């Protein structure tokens, strides 16, 4: 058969290519700070901290959490399940506070979200909001806190070996 054949491919001019790459990298990195974190009132977290009976952690290879400005609660033991597989949490900051409040017990906060039905198992488990059912009655899976490459805590459902499976260190400061 015959075929319309377009002109041959060309390379993107280098001087613009480098600028585009640099700009895209900045856009991606900047998106992290534009995500709206799920704010949890400090008082609620303090209450939840004492009642996280379903939350477990285990020290294997451990590393301290160095960035406590926020943390992530995952709904599946995977880093590649997409943006609906986790939610970002941060402590509410008092008006006039010079710096963000620190998330000092991510497992407890995530357990609260599971218990309240905000998180559900699966790769899109952080997509929706609380489902029907008595408030605070949803099941909390075993949870384990790991440390992401940037030093942020990430809490996954799963056994203590989950961090090792994901090639992440356990979070030293969140082990109970």
């Amino acid at each position, binding site marked *: *058969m015959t075929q319309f054949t377009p002109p041959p491919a060309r*390379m993107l001019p280098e001087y613009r290519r480098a600028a585009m790459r640099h*700009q895209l990298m900045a856009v991606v990195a900047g998106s992290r700070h534009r995500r709206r974190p799920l704010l949890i009132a400090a008082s609620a977290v303090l209450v939840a901290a004492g009642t996280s009976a379903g939350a477990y952690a285990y020290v294997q290879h451990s590393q301290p959490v160095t960035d406590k400005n926020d943390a992530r609660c995952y709904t599946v033991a995977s880093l590649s399940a997409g943006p609906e597989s*986790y939610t970002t949490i941060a402590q509410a900051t008092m008006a006039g506070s010079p710096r963000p409040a620190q998330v000092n017990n991510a497992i407890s906060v995530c357990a609260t979200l599971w218990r309240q039905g905000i998180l559900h198992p699966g790769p899109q488990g952080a997509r929706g909001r609380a489902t029907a059912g008595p408030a605070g009655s949803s099941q909390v899976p075993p949870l384990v806190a790991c440390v992401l490459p940037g030093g942020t805590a990430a809490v996954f459902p799963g056994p203590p070996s989950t961090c090792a499976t994901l090639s992440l260190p356990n979070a030293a400061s969140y082990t109970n």
Partner: protein
Amino acid sequence: MTDWAALSDGQLWARAASQFEGEAFGQLFERHANAVYTYCFRRTGSWLAAEDLTSVVFLEAWRKRRDVRLAGESVLPWLLAVAGNVTRNAERSIRRHRRLLARLPRPETVPDVADDAAKRVDAEHAMRLILGELRLLTEPEREVLALCDWAGLTYAEAAVALGVPVGTVRSRLARARQHLRERAAPAALIVTSVTASKEDQA
């Protein structure tokens, strides 16, 4: 130290989308920028427009990162589908990202070699003639022609990119080719030594 070259598109995409690693997205750009650039040129007939649109395609891909569809481990088919949408709505797409585009170096600031400039002009002229001939096709037919015959995607990759069944890709491409065969196109536009698509060779 991360061996970026060893990571698949899917792994890079996951690191960019879930951990906001700019370098991961930069690696994807390095891998696919030329293919996207050439695709944009072939849909618009302008190298200059294709430069800006290439940037827009990646910005749009990032904006729509939750909708990504990988074909196997490659993100290129989906990027080309995004490029199709961007080139169809070029003005609106450029308007959306105009502030970022304005920060890129402008083309006229770099002198071009005369011979290369002539080749660019010739290519644009040829491409616009082809695009003129393709106006008899529907947009879906033009799209599968550009994806399969020009960009070299398989039917399956094009199907994933467009979110349609493989059979639909196959039938659209068959109709497109049939229209072109029936069309009495200028001889200069028709190549008789056919470069078959990957599917035809299989």
